[in-house]
């Protein structure tokens, strides 16, 4: 793992290694001293071209707990909002000695460009790019699922996860389909046909337009945020109709398996894709997802920077 750009970069074993490592690192959170010296002297840059408070602070917490030096660049109030290009920003960061860049960008593939353009040499971690992927979100979702469904160990073989909502524009859905599939779970995507990507039938998952058909017996349901703007673009007739056909309420949540859980990557539109009583209910693990995010991101930073150290060493000895 030189970079983490897509959940497709991860084999089942690599994904399990990240989850296992995150599990051990999670114990640090329970200690008096919530800090490890592992990345002392390493510089991690948070490069956020798009506003995302929760992902940014999650990566910040992860880097700080590993004692890395942290630089945060966010679009607001920095040169990127003044039209400085991705390339120039990247060169600046390289000059500052960044070992890893955590990048959030509105353009799909921007992290891939950073990693492969030859502009910079450091590790690139995708913190969400356009409508492409959000691999660390998928990892924290998998971690949360595993915690509840498999006692925090092993993979997710035989489990069924239903992902509901704006799949077309969702980087979370893309990464989750790839990762959960690699971990042995079967995934069912549910959305109105207008919010399904072209070619979704080639993805390693099932596709359904009917939520009530998909939910019974599922181990988990993940509700995606639906932006109200989509209504104006004629993806669906009204928010009311969307909620009725694709929203998660108490009745629908009760269709899940007995130990079935409810996830949401946030931020939620309560009353739109999920009712408040389900969001705050017994099955909801939405708050826990946030905690697990820090552990998973610590594991990713540690494993990627460690793997790069190893690669550099191999190179030096050749």
């Amino acid at each position, binding site marked *: 793992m030189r970079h983490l750009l897509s959940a497709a970069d991860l084999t089942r074993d690599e994904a399990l290694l990240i989850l296992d490592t995150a599990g051990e690192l999670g114990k640090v959170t329970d200690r008096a001293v919530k800090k490890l010296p592992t990345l002392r002297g390493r510089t991690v840059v948070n490069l956020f071209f798009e506003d995302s408070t929760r992902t940014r602070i999650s990566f910040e917490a992860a880097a700080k707990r590993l004692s890395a030096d942290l630089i945060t660049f966010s679009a607001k109030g920095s040169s990127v909002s003044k039209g400085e290009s*991705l390339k120039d920003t990247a060169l600046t960061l390289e000059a500052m000695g960044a070992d890893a860049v955590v990048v959030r960008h509105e*353009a799909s*593939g*921007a992290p891939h460009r950073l990693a492969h353009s030859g502009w910079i040499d450091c590790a690139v971690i995708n913190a969400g790019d356009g*409508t*492409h992927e959000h691999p660390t979100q998928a990892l924290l979702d998998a971690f949360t699922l595993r915690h509840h469904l498999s006692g925090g160990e092993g993979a997710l073989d035989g489990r069924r996860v239903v992902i509901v909502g704006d799949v077309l524009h969702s980087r979370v859905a893309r990464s989750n389909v790839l990762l959960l599939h690699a971990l042995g779970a079967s995934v069912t995507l549910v959305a109105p046909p207008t919010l399904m990507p072209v070619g*979704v039938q080639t993805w390693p998952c099932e596709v359904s337009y009917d939520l009530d058909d998909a939910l019974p017996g599922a181990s988990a349901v993940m509700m995606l945020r639906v932006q109200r703007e989509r209504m104006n673009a004629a993806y669906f007739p009204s928010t009311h109709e969307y909620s009725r056909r694709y929203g998660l309420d108490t009745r629908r949540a009760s269709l899940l398996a007995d130990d079935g859980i409810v996830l949401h990557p946030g931020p939620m539109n309560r009353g739109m894709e999920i009712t408040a009583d389900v969001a705050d209910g017994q099955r909801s693990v939405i708050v826990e997802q946030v905690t697990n995010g820090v552990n998973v991101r610590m594991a990713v930073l540690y494993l990627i920077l460690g793997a790069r150290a190893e690669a550099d060493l191999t190179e030096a000895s050749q």
Partner: protein
Amino acid sequence: MSVLLKGALLYGEEAVDVVIAEGRIAGLEPPGGASDGDLVVDARSLVLLPGLVDLHTHLREPGREDAETIQTGSAAAALGGFTAVHAMANTQPVADTAGVVEQVWRRGVDAGLCDVFPVGAVTVGLRGEQLAELGAMAESAARVRVFSDDGVCVNDAVLMRRALEYVKAFDGVIAQHAQEPRLTEGAQMNEGALSGVLGLRGWPSVAEEAIIARDVLLADHVDSRVHICHLSTRGSVEIVRWAKERGINVTAEVTPHHLVLTEEIARTYDPRYKVNPPLRTAADVEAVRRGLADGTIDAVATDHAPHPHEDKDCEWAAGAFGMLGLETALSVVIETMVDTGRLDWRGVADRMSVRPARIGRLDGHGRPLEVGEPANLVLVDPSARWTVDPARLASRSRNTPFVAREMHGRVVATFLAGRPTVLEGRLT
């Protein structure tokens, strides 16, 4: 000035000595039969074709001289074997008046490396609202016959109909950039399974095909002629084939890149491969090759689209659409059409010279290789292999999609009205 080409293979067939004098082919003799000239070129094992004609070139001047000028673009054209190019109208200012097209035409004459024929805009400012003064451009010194809003589609059906009707008065043609705008808002690449995986907004085939279908029916209805720019999908080939069978006066072009590259290369997220219309699937590539072979597609046109480095050295969504084409077009055609046995050299001459010249209503280009014809000629070494080095291109821009690719065949010499513009693969 007289020139003697010794032992050239006429259309890749029999070897002849070609005598060029006073801008025309003065003699075609058996090898060894001709006397000396001011310039003697050893043309043994080189293929002689009529000078290539490009229906679709962006020379960027006036307005974007940082990307290309008429001078540098003409040089690239000559090196690519072209003796005539059609300069697209989407310059700044737009070539929508007699004044602008005459300026472009004159600058082409001044450069003197190939004949530059300006394309006139169909609508004022390419805005799709009001017809530009098509008649004035037709009657100007530039003698415009091809009109196009290329870069944007003439989407309004009534406006398209009127344009098709109006150009009948001077035997003009509307070259349509077929792209339904609402279906392609924010589009980044071909729409399909891959765009879904990469999270890039799709540009569906139907957005091209729907416009082509409408426009061939309009052309039929008003009995005018329409030309389809950079046709890129299997469905488009089928529609054009159907229209031609019906006797509709439609012609079509395909770009070199759509003959050889597929959407798969978008996986790199490198905007060098971002182009409009987008690279399509392998099935589409096969269909356009077949369409070009059977004549459904009339011409190869480069859609040479220079962009400064910074417009390509960025993330995909921020990148500009377009690729260089002039200096690599013939090699791509040799690789995909000649070396595969789909076209012989007469076929290449037909698709890259004869038919584009006829579509553009050019008199002195795309003529047969016969005594008395204008000496607009290109000599090609079909067995040469070369590698594209962007730094060595004559174009002012570097955005070729063929970096480091081994190219098939190369232009050895180009003659414009009997005068060499390129010799031994270099500008004279």
